[in-house]
């Protein structure tokens, strides 16, 4: 049957099953709420729900997680915009312009743009996913081997070094710190323990969820607390004025560009939505005539980041379903759901369980569409969190973060790690370093080292081998040019005050 016929069948199956409908709407609302409440995230909800999926059918379990994925990525934008606390790493660039907009009394406009662009990015991505999963997966796997993926990681990091920190050097120091945190634990080739300091906890590496919560949520509370303690705290201004259609249409090119970037990053295993959002944001800066406005509350920054990260969600399902390769934490949990039901994601899923695949695709399509409707309603409620005085909101966020860090593995040490990351993030931020850069380094560190090792083995340890592969050569050259260009700008162009 053609994709459209399959989509109709999937839709009918989804909405003719009362339990399926209940799970779908539960996932939509749960993903949005957990994404939009500062301190917890869609990953917290997913970790809590993972054991329960054993009692659901595989179809319902995977559908629930894919719906949470779509709506949770959007929900994370709300906390990024309202509180400068990205709900997930992929929402970090959203905060660069979203939070300054809140400070300027334009929170409604930023959140409205996030709603629209998340829905557009996610829906377009879901449509492409439905139309061409198999050919895209085959192209991605044949064109993107370890050398290309390593080159893309290198390019992504080179781009991200210029975003979020006060100086280029601090940008690189932030990213390198994240990459070094990712080194802790077993090495990806020989399984040799590194930097475990004889602590069993460190053998498996530092878990990224508590670390991210610490760097994003806890450090922000500390920064605001210092402002409150020293009398420079300004309560964010409440507004529910959404952007006009004209404003959004004016950014159509940015939306299109971010969809392409987001989809492209999403289909590459291990890259996912985080790099998509950073690259979407950076391209918006690069193409802009007035770069100096970015980071100060420019709507295009929010639009580019949110379109790109939601465009990556549909695309991330392609390597997962077609090849069995998860692109991020939530898609990795979906592999767990498959395994609980004695299934393996991969090409055979399309042959053995076409119903499951098309119900999931239909659910993702409608979940992205529902962002438009439920998202606007939810936003009007969530935005009122800004009315709560900070001294009452802070303990709530810190306790939610405690549950968020603890619920993943049931380890108190994860809570300690989160607060240590929070303190470190506080000191680094007040010195002009980028916590978003640290988190990006942490997320891409493992895949970067692994693909580098695989690439070197493939290329027989000949560095020049990278230049025999056109895509890898192009990306590495682009990365080197980006580094050289940013160093030139740093030393020879007129500095910002």
């Amino acid at each position, binding site marked *: 049957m053609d994709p459209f016929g399959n989509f109709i069948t999937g839709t009918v199956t989804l909405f003719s099953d009362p339990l399926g409908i209940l799970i779908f709407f539960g996932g939509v609302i749960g993903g949005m709420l957990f994404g939009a409440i500062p301190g917890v995230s869609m990953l917290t909800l997913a970790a809590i729900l993972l054991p329960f999926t054993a009692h659901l059918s595989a179809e319902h379990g995977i559908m629930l997680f894919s719906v949470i994925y779509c709506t949770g990525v959007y929900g994370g934008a709300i906390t990024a915009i309202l509180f400068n606390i990205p709900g997930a790493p992929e929402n970090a660039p959203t905060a660069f312009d979203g939070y300054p907009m809140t400070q300027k009394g334009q929170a409604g406009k930023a959140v409205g743009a996030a709603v629209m662009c998340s829905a557009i990015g996610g829906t377009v991505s879901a449509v492409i996913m439905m139309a061409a999963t198999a050919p895209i997966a085959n192209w991605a796997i044949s064109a993107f081997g370890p050398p290309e993926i390593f080159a893309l990681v290198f390019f992504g990091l080179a781009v991200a070094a210029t975003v979020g920190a006060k100086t280029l050097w601090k940008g690189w120091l932030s990213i390198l710190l994240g990459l070094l945190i990712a080194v802790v634990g077993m090495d990806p080739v*020989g399984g040799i323990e590194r930097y475990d300091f004889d602590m069993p906890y460190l053998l498996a590496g530092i878990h990224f969820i508590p670390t991210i919560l610490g760097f994003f949520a806890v450090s922000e509370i500390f920064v605001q607390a210092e402002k409150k303690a020293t009398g420079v705290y300004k309560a964010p201004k409440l507004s529910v004025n959404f952007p006009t259609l004209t404003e959004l249409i004016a950014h159509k090119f940015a939306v299109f560009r971010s969809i392409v970037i987001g989809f492209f990053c999403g289909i590459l295993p291990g890259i996912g939505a985080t790099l998509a959002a950073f690259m979407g944001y950076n391209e918006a800066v690069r193409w802009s005539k007035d770069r100096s406005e970015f980071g100060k509350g420019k709507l295009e920054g929010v639009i580019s980041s949110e379109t790109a990260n939601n465009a990556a969600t549909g695309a991330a399902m392609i390597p997962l379903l077609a090849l069995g390769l998860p692109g991020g934490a939530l898609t990795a949990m979906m592999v767990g759901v498959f395994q609980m039901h004695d299934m393996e994601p991969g090409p055979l899923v399309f042959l053995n369980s076409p119903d499951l695949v098309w119900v999931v695709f239909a659910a993702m399509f409608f979940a992205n569409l529902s962002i438009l409707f439920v998202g606007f309603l939810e936003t009007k409620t969530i935005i009122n969190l800004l009315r709560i005085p900070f*001294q009452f909101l802070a303990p709530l966020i810190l306790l939610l973060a405690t549950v968020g860090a603890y619920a993943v593995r049931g380890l108190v040490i994860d809570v300690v790690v989160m607060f240590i990351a929070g*303190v470190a993030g506080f000191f680094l931020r007040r010195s002009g370093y980028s916590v978003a850069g640290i988190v990006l380094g942490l997320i891409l560190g493992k895949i970067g080292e692994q693909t580098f090792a695989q690439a070197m083995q493939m290329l027989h340890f000949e560095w020049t081998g990278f230049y025999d592969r056109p895509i890898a050569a192009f990306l590495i050259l682009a990365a080197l040019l980006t580094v050289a260009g940013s160093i030139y700008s740093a030393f020879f162009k007129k500095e910002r005050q």
Partner: protein
Amino acid sequence: MGKLRLGHICEAAFWLILAAFLYVESFDFDRGIEIYKFGATGWPRALLLLLAVAAIGQLVYQFLAGDKSTSGTVGAASDDGAEEAARESGHSHLRWYVSAFCLLALPFLYMRAHDLAGLFLTLDKDGVHSVKLVAAPLLLVVYLFLARGNQVGAILTLPLFFAALLEDLGFYAMAPLFIVGITLLMGERRARWIALTVALIMGFMLLIFVSLLYVGLPTGNISPFYDLSHWLVTLLQ
């Protein structure tokens, strides 16, 4: 010295010392891997080299330009008010840092209290619990004493204290105290509002996570805190 300040030199020294320390530590896992000639140390050592280069680059830049942002960077952390708050509050002096780090050491002292006591005493499981029950209030007194001179340091330390106590005393007993502590440190003095905040937050957390989602929060392992937690969880679930 160009436009360099002592803070810039300390910052560069921190990164270089970190790089040197991690380089020395890398000899612990400097073992060859047959199929991979760079071994387990190749990647981390390359990162450490880059870290040192970036730290020196930053120092050179600060020598030339001081605290100015570089051209071409966007969304800078400096724009989110973190630096401004530190500068305006005078919380960037050496004395403030020393006092903050003294406060931050207290939760770690609690976590290692039984090891320290073990140097002088032979401790069984009950002995470890007794040491912790004595150490917690003692360190809390020291915390309150130091916190008077450093409010921000106290705010940074309280969550770490809370996390350190979670394993032994449990979430259910510690969370209400934590909420009271944070609201007080944030300057709230109205007892009724604080009590209402505790009731609302605890009610929300228990309803959503314990009753609805069955999340097993830390119950502690020292009586009577463990018994209290166990009773509460049974009641709610």
